[in-house]
């Protein structure tokens, strides 16, 4: 799903939507996590991870959603976060939102 050069495809849709704040945050997280000061993972690990997303996951998510899934997967792989704590934090944020 990444080695696309020369594959048949339709016309280029000149999508110019500006990234939302959430998308800009994902972009910033990615930059910072790969920056020399933080170095949670490197760009090649990021690419390896995004390339290994299952096809259905890749197709179901848009660009920055895939980046977020990649960040999450690498943080778990590196032992910096656990799935359990991420799910627990999401649940806590949801509970706050419904108060």
């Amino acid at each position, binding site marked *: 799903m990444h*080695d696309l*050069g*020369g594959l048949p495809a339709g016309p280029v849709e000149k999508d110019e939507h500006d990234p939302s704040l959430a998308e800009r945050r994902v972009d910033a997280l990615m930059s910072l996590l790969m920056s020399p000061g933080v170095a949670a993972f*490197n760009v*090649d*690990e990021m*690419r*390896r991870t995004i*390339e290994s997303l299952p096809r259905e996951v890749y197709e179901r998510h848009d660009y920055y959603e895939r980046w977020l899934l990649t960040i999450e997967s690498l943080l778990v792989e590196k032992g910096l976060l656990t799935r359990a704590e991420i799910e627990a934090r999401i649940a806590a944020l949801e509970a706050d939102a419904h108060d």
Partner: protein
Amino acid sequence: MTERRFADGALVRVRDLPVKGHMRTPSYVRGRQGRIEGCQGSFPNPEERAYGSDGLPARSLYHVRFRQRDLWPAYAGLAADSLSLDLFEHWLEPAHGT
């Protein structure tokens, strides 16, 4: 600086190695012949870096130019049209021809 194996102008073929994991050599140039346009310097090997190593020693990264007609049999455009990209030295082997 790593010593370069290929000089500018050298004819090379992109190796058609089995895909074992992450790499930066697109499938559309594998097995194709092109010409060295220059060397971008040496950089850590992304195929190793992708799995957590430092990718050292750094490998020479070449800018390689292909004729479009050598890449796409049905290419619609001028015979002079070309495509170039950066390829690591271990993906290249010497080629002979025109």
